[in-house]
């Protein structure tokens, strides 16, 4: 594990000591190399987990997430080059430092053994994200967005701290590897109900669950591109990962307590997809589609069957890559037209045909086209929820249709139709942007050839 943590930490002195014209090259290349190291963890050779030390371990659930996190840092750096080009050198270096710090905390969160360490780093990821959103975001609303983001997550996760301390006191250890063998079934008393709620609420807010999702459209829309990418791709998955870990300690209460949250997720899935159909702001549309996809993951984690866990893991990885790619595409539009309103920049297929190809592939992945792992995840979750209750198939089916509708709506509005007059002199696609899209899409397509890497510990 140190072979990832130390290089990541060293990225910070690397950026500060680089020459001004080498900061992007140095940081991007080195972060790409770090991601190649983390790929080695995907080779999980036992039923149990891969233990690096007393503090860190990785198992088939956290290894793909770790790979996603480290893969994302070079992509974030590539995407940020344009909008940071007018800042001073010190600001650019500070931005890269923030991203690296966030990366460090995320790596440690995904591989933490102790749940308290997990909690501390979970909270620590809030700080660099908040700084990125409020300092480098685009509009005055970003202050509001940062506030929402910070307080929703904090208020949700403070009870988690208390719950973890309580579990430490009663069970004796919060080391995850031990706790899963020492856990006793908890009965349905009021204090256990509150314990369950305290444990789960932090992750519900992070996912986000439908009723607690208000911070997400604000934060995603107001964040700069790297902020949106990391929020959509990784920070949301923290919630899913945490939920999967903590439910081990909370059986069999989950069977009864999960009902309201399942209902909220199923309903919220359809609601947020429908809202996407009425969005005028491109980034807002992608943000709401994130909520919709994550609702599927919540459903999967709460019904706790082997297939649903496989589906949840696959869906998390797939959504991470797809959502991040869609945000990059929206940002490339924004950098040219300086407006995020969809109707003002139409008919881009004739002007930027290669970018149109990336748009097409990203939208098709978003609507879960076979044989991508998006489809795999959604299908597994659908089948598991059908076996949990037959009625859910109607809701899931409706969601799939509406997802297809808004993905195609986004595609048609941005690409097809007659161009508006004022987009005729936008700059053609840069190689950097094409590389960015290709690097997002390549893992997604390759994973569809061998999905068992991302199917999680049950497989």
């Amino acid at each position, binding site marked *: 594990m140190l072979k990832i943590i130390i290089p990541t930490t060293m990225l910070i002195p690397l950026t500060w000591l680089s020459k001004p014209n080498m900061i992007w090259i140095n940081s991007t290349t080195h972060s790409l190399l770090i991601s190649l190291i983390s790929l080695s963890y995907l080779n999980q050779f036992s039923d149990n987990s891969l233990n690096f030390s007393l503090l860190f371990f990785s198992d088939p659930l956290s290894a793909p997430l770790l790979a996603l996190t480290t893969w994302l840092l070079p992509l974030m750096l590539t995407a940020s080059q344009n909008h940071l080009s007018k800042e001073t050198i010190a600001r650019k270096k500070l931005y890269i430092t923030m991203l690296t710090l966030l990366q460090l905390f995320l790596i440690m969160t995904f591989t933490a053994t102790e749940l308290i360490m997990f909690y501390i780093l979970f909270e620590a990821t809030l700080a660099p994200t908040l700084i990125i959103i409020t300092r480098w975001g685009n509009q005055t609303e970003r202050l509001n967005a940062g506030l929402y983001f910070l307080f929703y997550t904090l208020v949700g996760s403070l009870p988690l701290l208390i719950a973890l301390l309580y579990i430490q006191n009663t069970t004796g250890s919060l080391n995850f590897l031990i706790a899963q063998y020492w856990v006793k079934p908890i009965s349905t008393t009021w204090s256990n109900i509150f314990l369950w709620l305290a444990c789960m609420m932090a992750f519900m807010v992070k996912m986000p669950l439908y009723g607690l999702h208000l911070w997400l459209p604000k934060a995603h829309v107001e964040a700069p591109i790297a902020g949106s990418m990391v929020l959509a791709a990784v920070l949301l998955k923290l919630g899913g990962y945490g939920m999967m870990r903590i439910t081990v300690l909370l059986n069999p209460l989950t069977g009864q307590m999960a009902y309201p949250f399942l209902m909220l997720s199923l309903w919220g899935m359809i609601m947020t997809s429908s809202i996407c159909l009425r969005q005028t702001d491109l980034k807002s549309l992608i943000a709401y589609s994130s909520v919709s996809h994550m609702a599927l993951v919540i459903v999967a984690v709460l019904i706790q069957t082997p297939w649903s866990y496989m589906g949840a893991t696959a869906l998390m990885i797939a959504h991470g890559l797809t959502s991040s790619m869609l945000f990059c595409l929206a940002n490339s539009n924004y950098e040219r037209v300086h407006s995020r309103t969809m109707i003002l920049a139409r008919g881009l297929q004739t002007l930027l045909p290669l970018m149109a190809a990336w748009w097409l592939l990203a939208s098709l992945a978003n609507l879960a086209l076979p044989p991508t792992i998006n489809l795999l995840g959604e299908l597994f979750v659908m089948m598991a929820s059908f076996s949990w209750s037959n009625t859910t198939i109607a809701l899931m089916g409706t969601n799939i249709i509406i997802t297809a509708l808004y993905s195609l709506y986004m595609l048609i509005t941005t690409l097809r139709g007659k161009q508006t007059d*004022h987009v005729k002199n936008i700059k053609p696609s840069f190689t950097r942007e094409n590389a960015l899209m290709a690097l997002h899409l390549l893992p997604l397509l390759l994973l569809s050839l061998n999905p068992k890497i991302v199917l999680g510990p049950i497989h």
Partner: protein
Amino acid sequence: MLRRALLLGLGRGPLGRGLGTHRGGSTLDWDGKVSEIKKKIQSILPGGTWDPLYDTSYLPPERADVVIVGGGVLGLSVAYWLKKLEKPRGAIRVLVVERDHTYSRASTVLSVGGIRQQFSVPENVQLSLFSIDFLRNINEYLAVVDDPPLDIQFNPSGYLLLASEKGAAIMENNVKVQRQEGAKVSLMSPEQLRNKFPWINTEGVALASYGMEQEGWFDPWSLLQGLRRKVQSMGVLFCHGEVTRFVSSSNHVETASGEKVNLKRIHEVHVKIDQSLEYQPVECAIVINAAGAWSGQVAELAGIGKGPPGTLQGTKLPVELRKRYVYLWHCPQGPGLETPFVIDPSGTYFRREGLGQNYLGGCSPTEEEEPDPGNLEVDHDFFQDRVWPTLAQRVPAFESLKVRSAWAGYYDYNTFDQNGVVGPHPLVLNMYFATGFSGHGLQQAPAVGRAVAEMVLEGHFKTINLSSFLFSRFYLGEKVQEHNII
């Protein structure tokens, strides 16, 4: 004074109240106090815009989709139609930047307020026809919930254009064009003229065209206020400032004929706040130049016209300020209530104003006697020398009149062909024009607003085809000459 001191004392909370100097509770502004507290709480709660350090509500937003430079009737009309024609409601964020909220020098409010269909160019007739329909049904278009209906005081008295022997043939042609478009205009001989309007002296008049319906005059200030109110209710943002700079990026492109042109794209508009050095860069996708008489200066800021003359690069926007005087006089024996807006062949015009035998009128000076447009001072000698003789000759009753007041206003005069410029610039692709109407902008504002909104949203003109009014005609030299310019 006392009230303000009381409010301050109340604002300080228990300290103020503890000093307890107010007897007579009726001076406590309870409602005001409650609303102030509500405002304070709202600014802290994460619901609205939160300015932790100081109040920045006078600044425009940092980003807007469309920035409209100029808040006169044309700018507000474009804002109205953009908001009305956008497909999903609330999609576009529109910012109107106006540097003078009293509109003291704007052409809209200093205008005589006439509306006519008697133009020679068919597009002008169509524009006026739609505009009069808009004005007649103004409360269907500009109704705001809970606000009183608008009354623009439209006087449908019609226009009477007189033509001498030389102009009679042109007038007949014009009337044919107008009738084809649907305007109801009647041609009158001097005999018929004397019968209908006995106060006219028909010496030198060979033919007259009289608009029978949908022509007249109205109050431009109420139209402006009505548009402002409606546009604010639709969510358009207003800013009190002046556009001082456009930040743009350019691409060097070669046309098919090998000519090198510079395609520009405006990224940001710097809006300088009134009476301060502070400016706010507003990131925008589209800029609409509706600055009226000052459109030429705004276009120069965007780099239009900077290039070798004779090329597309070097074609300036030929809109400049021209000062025009309007005089208000009282004549007790003057023509009665049926008086239309009369336009003499010499260029002098007058119309009735109100019901007290007052008349408004003036004359456009020739090129040589153009007054200096530096200020809005009125030259009364102009009335004595140029306007009164022709007035008195046309209407004998005007030999004895008393000038009550006079004012001057600017025309956004298009020196090329005195017709409007509408649509995008061929090189600065995200600047659209809605200006240069040389004295007939107010009457065509609703229709022009709709045309520009269609151009921005759809990419082509849908209802009235104004492709002959595009900017490219200045480079290609295709004049759309309007003969009936006052």
